[in-house]
Structures are given as C-alpha cells and as structure tokens.
C-alpha cells in the first residue's frame, strides 16, 4: 500500500515527446494523434519576430493529475473510475459505459476515448504494466532525456519524491478548485 505521486521538474522539458511514445508502446495505446495519455502543453509564442518572449513558450508536460479529490470519480455512475490501493485513479474498462460524464468533469482534459473498447482511458501510472511487474519507474519517467519526472510514494518519508517535495518549492495545477492533484510541478 502506498500513495503514488509524481514530481515534474517541468523546466527541464524540451518538448521532445519521448514520454508520449514510451507510454504508447508500454501501455498499448492506440495509434493516432488524438489518442494519448500524456502530452506537452505549450502556448503560442508572444511577440513579433525578432522580439519574442521566451517565457511565453514554456513547455508544460502533463497527464492525468491523479487527483486526491477527483471529480471524474465522483460523477462516474457505474464506479468504473475508482481509487486503487495505491491511491491511483483507475478506470475499469469492463464497467465503463462511455457516458463520458468523467470527460466533462475532468478539469484537466486528461481523458480520451479508446476506440477499440469504446471506453474512457487515461494515465494510470503504468499500474497494470510496469508497476504490476514490480518496476519502480513509469515509462514516461524512465525514457525522458532531461529527466523531468520523479515517481514515488509520498507516504514514505524517505522516498526521493518526499524529499524533493520537502526541499523544493512546488505548485499544482488549478489548485483553487480543490481537486488536490498528486502531480507536483517544481519551480
């Protein structure tokens, strides 16, 4: 039993999208640009050439925020969306009826439809692949050239993620809406 979370040193991200490919290959995600559990957010650059604002073009690697207070789970009528023993928000595809309430409820746009099973899918911290085999890293973390992610158990005070969260300033996305994300972005 653990409480899994992730730290993102997002300033390292070079927007290469290795994480997206690694996730697809590991978890057997459908081919196609619209199907992915993980992505890099980036805004259009501000300014006019040659006066461009570098900071306006920051890369924000993102995926399901693994909310501790997840709206997606709350609205799911069949309890297809549930918390597993490690606090990971999962989707049981056998129970999902594609009512898509969760997709609307998720403030982070983390969910998409897997058209093979016609159910909703999203990041599950590689729970049924890597974690199930006892591995300690997620696919997106392991492959990343600039090592953006640290995955781990925040209930274990000795874990690296706990140490990082104690020592480095961090923030969560849309913290004001009370979803309590377990993805922490360090400054």
């Amino acid at each position, binding site marked *: 039993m653990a409480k899994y979370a992730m730290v993102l040193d997002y300033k390292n991200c070079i927007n290469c999208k290795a994480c997206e490919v690694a996730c697809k290959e590991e978890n057997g995600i*459908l081919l196609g640009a619209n199907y992915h559990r993980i992505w890099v957010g980036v805004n259009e650059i501000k300014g006019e050439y040659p006066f461009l604002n570098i900071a306006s073009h920051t890369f924000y690697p993102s995926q399901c925020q693994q909310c501790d207070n997840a709206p997606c789970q709350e609205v799911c009528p069949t309890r297809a969306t549930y918390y597993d023993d490690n606090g990971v928000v999962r989707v049981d595809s056998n129970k999902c009826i594609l009512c898509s309430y969760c997709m609307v409820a998720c403030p982070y746009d983390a969910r998409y439809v897997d058209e093979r099973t016609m159910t909703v899918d999203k990041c599950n911290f590689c729970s049924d692949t890597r974690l199930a085999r006892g591995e300690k890293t997620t696919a997106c973390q392991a492959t990343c050239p600039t090592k953006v992610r640290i995955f781990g158990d925040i209930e274990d005070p000795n874990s690296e993620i706990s140490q990082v969260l104690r020592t480095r300033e961090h923030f969560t996305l849309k913290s004001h809406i009370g979803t309590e994300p377990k993805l922490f972005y360090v400054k």
Partner: protein
Amino acid sequence: MEVEISRRRFLQGSVALSVVAVGATASIASKGEEKPKIVGNYGITKTSKKEVVMIPTLCEMCVNKCAVLARVEDGVVTKLDPNPYFPKSKNMLCPRGNAGIQALYDPDRLKYPLIRDGEKGSGKFKRVSWDEANEYIKEKMVKILDEEEDNRSTFLFCAGEGMAEHTFKTFYQAFGSSNWLNHASLCLQTVVSGYGATLGTYPSADLENAQYVIMAGANRAEAIVTPDSMDFFKRTQGRGAKLICIDPIFTNTAAKADKWLPIKPGTDLAFVLALTYVVIDEKMYNLKYVAENFDGFEEYKAHILGHKYTPEWAQEITGISAKDIREIAREFMLYAPKAIYYPGRRSTFSKNDFQLRRAMAIFQALGGGIDTKGGLIFGKSLKIEEHEGLSPLYAKAESRAIAKKDHPKKGEAGYADCAIVSGGGSWIGWRNRFLEGKMPYKVRGMFVYKHNPVLNMPNSAKTIEMLKKMDLVVAIDTMPSDTVLYADVVLPECTYLERTDPVKTFGGSEPSIAQRNKVIEPLYESKPIMDILRDLTAKISKPIFEITKKYDEDVQEAIEEDGEEEVYADFDLTKPFLHSQEELNEHAVAKYPGAAQILKTKGVYYPEMDKLFKQLSVNEYQYYPENSKFYSVLGGKTKMASGKVECNLASLADKGVDAMPTWKDEFAFVVPAGKFRLLTGRHAQFTQSGTSNNAMLKDLIDENYIWINKRVAKQKNIAFGDKIEVSSRIGCTVLKAYPTEKIAPDMVFFIHGFGQESKGLNMAYKVGGNDNSVIEDTIEPTYGSSIMHETNVEIRKV
C-alpha cells in the same frame, strides 16, 4: 501559479491517423508474403506481466546510438527501454528511439531480394531468391568490368552513417574501387575538418560542467545528441548555466535559452570574428593559455584588428546589435574556461562554413577552454582491435574520379570544384561531374548502402537522372526509399534490432565500449550486411578475378611466378566476411577480460564498471567518479602535431583556402523583394527521410509544414493548413502552411525528409514537401560540401 495546459496539440499533428492494416497494395511489395510474427497492426502491444528476456542493444533511429534494453515477449519486441549502463546516453531514449519497434514491424519493409521488372522508377520489381539476385549482380558486374578492362573504379560505393558502414566499406576496399562517397559532404564535413585543422580533432563539449554556452545553429533540443542535450537543458534559465542561442528561427533550443539572438542566416562567421575582435582589442583572452598554446597568434591578432572586425561592422552584417556582441564576448571570457562555443554537428549552411568552424575553434581557445573541464575536451577512448580488411592492388583501377584544374596556379585550388578532396568525397561535386560528362573514365555501376541520395542531397531530379544513367544500381536497405525505387537489384537488410553490429568504442570524459546485439532473428528473408556480403562475395569473387587475370599485367606476372592459388589469396573478396560479426566482436575486445560476455549481457563495458557504476537516485547514475573522469588528457595542448592551436595555416593557402578566417563581401546573400530564403532543419520526432514511414512518429508529426511569418501569411491570405507551392530555380514542392512569428518575414523553413515519391512507403508517400527538390545544388569551396541555406524561393497558395 496558474498555467493553462491543454491536451490539444498546438501545432502540427492535429490530424488523426486512420490505422488500417496495410497489405501488399504497392507493387514494390511482392506477392506471396508470409506474415512475420507481429501482434496487431504496426506491432502496438501492451507489455505484459510475464518474466521476459531483456536484450541490450543500441538504437539506430538516428546517429546517436543510445543504449537500449529490448523487451522480448514470445519472440515479439514489445518495448524499448533506455539501458542505464551507457555513459553516453545516460538512461534516455528519445521519441524516435522508442518508436524503433515500428521500424522493425513496418509492413512496408523490404522483405525479399528484388530485381527490377519495369522502367527505372516505376516501382515494379519481381521477387527473387538471394541466389538469383547475386547471380544477376555477378553477370552485370562481369560484363561491365570486362568492357572497362578491369577498371574497378567503374563502380561507385556509397553509404549512409551507421555502425555497419565500416563492414560495407570493407567490401569497397577489397573490391578495389577508388570511388567512395558517404554522407559527410552532406553533413558534418566542414565542422569536423574545421576543428581538425585548428585543434587536431573534432572535440566533444563538456556541457555538463560548462557555465556559459553559445549554441549557434545547432538545435540540440531537437537534433538530440547525448550526453550534452540531456545534461545541459536541466541547468539553463537561471539554474546554473547560461545558454545563448543564435539561430535565425525560434527553435525548441531557443525556448530553453536565456537569450535568443536571431541572426541573418550564413553570417555566423562575421559574428565570431567580431567576438574575437572584442576580446583581442580589450585583451580579455587567457594570456597564459595563448602564450603557451597558440601558433600564429600575432598574425591572427593583426588580421582581426587590421580588418576592423568590430561589433559595429558585424552588426550591419549579422543583424545582432554591437551591444549584444560586446556583452557576449565579455561574458564568455568571464566564464572561460568553463565556457563553450558549441561546435555543433549539422550540415553546411553557407559557403564560409569551414572558415566559420576555424574561427569558432580559435575563439574557444582564446578563453583557454580546451582540454579542460567545462570546455571542449578530447577525452579518452578505450582501444579495441580493428577488423582486418583486404586492400589488393589492381593495376587497372583508376584513381578517384575527380576533375583536376588544367593549369592550376600557385595559391589556387588544384581541383575543379573544391580545394581538398576528403575521404568521403564531395557527393554533389561527384554527381554533377558525372552528369556533365566530366568524368575521367566511365563509372557504370553503383552500390548504395543504407543511404538515400535521392532525398538527402540538393536537387533530387539530378540524383534521379544519375541513377537512371547507371548500368547497374544495387541498393541494400531496409525500406523501399526513393533511391531504392531506381535500383536494378534490391537486397533487403534487416533492421538494427535483428542484427549484431561491429562493437564500437565511445571516447569522451567517461569512455566506454558498447555493442549492438541482435534482439530477434531477422524477419522475412532480410539479412545483416555481413551475411549479405558473405554470399555476394562468394558469388562474384572468382568470376571477377578472371577479368583481372585478363587485363592486369602485374597479376599475370605474379601468377607466372607464384602460381594462381597464392596470388588469388590476396584478391579473395570473401576473406573479410568469413567470420560472423559475433566472432569478430569477441576478437575486437579480447584484451579486456570478460568484456565480450559483459557486452552481450549489459550492452556496455568499461574497465571496473562493476565497481564504478552506481545508481545515485531514481533517475541518475554514476559511471566514473568525478576524480577519475578524463576531462584533461593533454594538459591544455591540442591534438595538432605541434600541440598548438593553429591560427594561420600556410598549407591551406597553397590550396587557395584562406590561411586565417576572413570575411568576404561575396558571403553576403540577398533576398530579392517578394522572395524568401529557404531554411531547413530537424524536429526531435523525426530523423531525415529514414523515419518518414514510422507509424508511431506520424502521430507526433503527420507531415512537415512550411513556417511562414504570420504577418506575411496574413498579407498573402495564407492560413494554417493551406497548401503552398514552394519553388526555386531548380524545382518545386507542395506542403501545408504554418504561419508563425518564430521566423523572419523574409525566410521560410521546413524540416527535411518528407515528400517521398516511393509508393512502397504507405505512410510517407507524397506526404509533405521535399526540401531537396527545391534547394539549389551549390557547394562550398573547401571540401565541396553542399550548401543548404543559400536558396531563394517563391511561395504561392495552391
């Protein structure tokens, strides 16, 4: 802090790909194919919980050779993970490296030997057996060699970059031709030679410890080269190191920089000369280092000051303000020797590229950042035994087909189109001479290995014409590329995951040896190059020796003296290919006890690895402890024979090349009103034409888009996704528009490698635009490397 992060793609690639099971729809794929062992379309599988074999190997999706652990479940490769043991790639795999599975299970792969069965370029081939293919090659070769009276140089050999390039080159050497062309003149020739002529070698950059880096032209966030790209981007933007990005377009590297200075393309030389001027004028250089390690500094100083290469002068040419130039020069020297003017790898973008690299190397050295931590380093490499080749002498083989000047004067290039002929040759110079009928003898056949000259060098139309004129083109490749389309015989090589390649040593501050191990047996009838050449040479060796006997008087005499058997032994083409690659690798590392076995199980070896290698954190590893890294190996000296930094090279002047980097008015490039300067480059999700048919990477970039300045696009009424025809003096191509402020109003940009015409490539066929059907085929004067950024184009909405 609030950030809005959307899963919607911001640019390029919003188009969903419909995944269909691709059968043998194109005529290049032959009938009667067996299904290889793959699961689902394009081998997208979820990894399972099973205990599996993890096989260490090396990636070949680009030139970087990152270490991989391949997960094999029931004979199917289901995942490629980074292999943490390799100091070079430090536990990473980029998107292309991850997508290597799709290269292996690409349904469009070349599966069987093929012989052309229609017009060249028609894509019509018939499936044959390996023996039939080799027999066909033999007959053609015997005929051509007989007609050319055993002039072995009537065959051209060319190859793309790769670990097995050497194996193929062994074939070229044993065959006895003088015509060898590789990708160097389309890529890094000028940078390697520029640094080579100044420092004695092309050094690596210790970006892990540098505190100040100027990255000009090189776009490391998108053209990934390890270890530096990973190390460095963790420290920019106020986190320990300062990055100055100099690039005419705003790249992902610019996005990670502390300062981005858009420079007018092709004027970097003026920028570096002005930096040099500032530090010499203000005496900010490392006096001790210069006094001890420079040759010709006084001349160079007089040259720089005398030409008045001032920041004000450079401002006019480069578009970078004199204030910025002064500031950067001073800052660089302040941080030196932990400051790097990044050498880059890249193509030759302008005529003055060789001199630019010399100027960069000298500027770097002025700060003393040579052979030292945080600067440019030579490092150490672990010696391994070379694979012995065969280099017989054929009396009738002509020397390399180069056109010499009729009556060169002193101080003028001896060759018609460039001053120095390098080992890899000048591809464009060679091709154009061939087409213009300027060859000193007939070249009638060619072997192309893992190389796509139709797409990879300027003026695709000319390359096609050359391929059509050859009497025999043998292509060895994994994919039905645009070049394969014009081949007479196609020999299918297996992909990098299906073969063991020559073991390789990787020098640097943390040297190691690494090996590409076969992960699964070759699919279909494909084979590794070693096996292809073993069979081919067994077929042709004796018959072509008969031709030699007929025309080569030296051989005739030798046979009279020593008997045929003894003489033939020196000409036996099969010799270099008798052993398996695995055996050769064991031999190559025999002096390191246990290394051969470790290379098989861990993929990487260096002495005392078991003691030194440690996991430091969830993401980081130690390879060598800090105090035993090889930052400094020559005490600051260079690798030149003199041990010095060479500022003034008289030997170059004899060949008509400036002895010191000099700016010339002819370097100015004018973009006429209404036209645009065409730039080309890379994104991180794509490696030239080689990855264009990769189903997974298509998710990330569906096609290449042409960047047009937003305001210009608005004026021209061009919106995102509109089809644009781009045309130059030599040709045109069509691709979709991406209006953006990341590019200047008088430039357009798109990445290289799209717009393939081979119908055998179901994913890539006619997708996006081909830059090389538009870029003019001009070469720079020193090595004859192709100039990529000196073409003006017109754009038109279609």
